[in-house]
């Protein structure tokens, strides 16, 4: 009790972030997971909780990676990795797949990002400001179309630069769409007032989190 030594900050690793997100996905949701940390989310949804994963290349009901001896070459996900299909899964063509996305039929999309701004803007496709050949893939459709967009990312860059910013500096993927951000340090909602801290990892205090964040943080009411 009188011990005033700071608790060490229990920052999450990539799987920790993914597991934290998985906790918030209820049964029955249709979910698209982006490349990177988001892909790991599926592994952390308990098998008995039915969540239907969508992949941009026209797969509904994406299951886990097959064992190496049982790869079906015709069945891949949007990251071009071999996957399986769960019972109840189905295939659609690309226009229908993006009708699902753009038409607001996905309950959730989880994407990685370089930056998220306090107004909900997301930048996750072009790493350089004037990279005219950056690969956008389906990121803009997913960001604009899903009913809820959550972002999974490290709270700062490897160099310690903030990624939760007042305004994005990288080329935008979509404007005003992010609802929630899960980082290695915290869970933050994007609200009309800006970022509201929903929870922090053990050992972290609000001021320390603010110090690693460009945008102004708000405490939950």
């Amino acid at each position: 009790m009188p011990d005033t030594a700071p608790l060490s900050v229990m920052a999450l690793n990539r799987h920790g972030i993914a597991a934290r997100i998985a906790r918030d996905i209820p049964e029955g949701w249709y979910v698209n997971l982006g490349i990177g940390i988001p892909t790991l989310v599926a592994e952390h949804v308990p098998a008995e909780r039915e969540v239907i994963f969508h992949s941009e290349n026209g797969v509904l009901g994406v299951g886990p990676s097959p064992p190496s001896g049982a790869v079906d070459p015709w069945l891949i996900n949007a990251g071009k990795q071999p996957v399986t299909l769960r019972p109840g899964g189905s295939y659609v063509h690309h226009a229908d797949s993006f009708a699902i996305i753009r038409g607001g039929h996905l309950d959730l999309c989880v994407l990685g990002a370089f930056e998220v701004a306090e107004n909900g803007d997301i930048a996750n496709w072009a790493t350089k400001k004037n990279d005219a050949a950056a690969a956008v893939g389906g990121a803009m459709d997913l960001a604009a179309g899903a009913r809820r967009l959550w972002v999974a990312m490290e709270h700062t860059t490897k160099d310690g630069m903030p990624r939760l910013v007042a305004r994005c500096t990288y080329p935008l993927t979509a404007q005003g769409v992010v609802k929630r951000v899960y980082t290695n340090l915290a869970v933050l909602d994007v609200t009309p007032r800006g970022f509201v801290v929903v929870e922090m990892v053990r050992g972290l205090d609000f001021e320390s989190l603010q110090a690693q964040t460009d945008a102004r943080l708000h405490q939950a009411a």
Partner: protein
Amino acid sequence: MIDKFVTSMEEAMAGIRDGAVVLLGGFGMVGQPDALIDGLIAQGAKDLTVVANNAGTGHTGLARLMELGRVRRVICSFPRSAGSVVFEALYSAGQIELEIVPQGTLAERMRAAGAGIPAFFTPTGAGTRLAEGKETREFDGRTHVLENALPGDVALIEAWRADRFGNLTFRESARNFNPIMAMAARLTIVQTQHAVFAGGLHPEVIVTPGIFVDRVLHVPYAMPVEKGGENA
């Protein structure tokens, strides 16, 4: 008797002209019409505009077509990936044009072309660099971008089963862009793994009806994984 099967690659490729807009099906290796792309390389048409999800990888297929200087312009969603060395080199040298289109907009623009819709509004890309210079309009308080249909002169696609009417099915995620490219092109050329007798495809399971198909070449047992390796 209607019979859309052709028996040689030459016949399949006949009439593809310099300057054509060529739609290439597939996503990654899956559903990609590799034999037809090789056929196009042999056929010789140049000054092509290629529409595909990627800009080619390695030194085969689309990458080879580009390496030969036959592609003037690429329209795709994912130009830069691990193996896109040919595209990278040509692009840095200013020897190839690029139009990046969000993947869903790319799909919808081709579907629109096939459906007689010359233009549509989409929320995708609004407020981003990819909407610069495009007409926008608010619907329900949200900015949308006007996008034009993207028709092809030729589509090269891969199917799983085909009959002489040109009816097609696809295998699993090999469906992807293939059905909409079949709709969007004036001349749709198919390579199919399996050729079945007329009536051999159940009417309820046909994904692409033959009305969207002009020629079918039987190219059995091409395995998408054999050429794997990149994760573009």
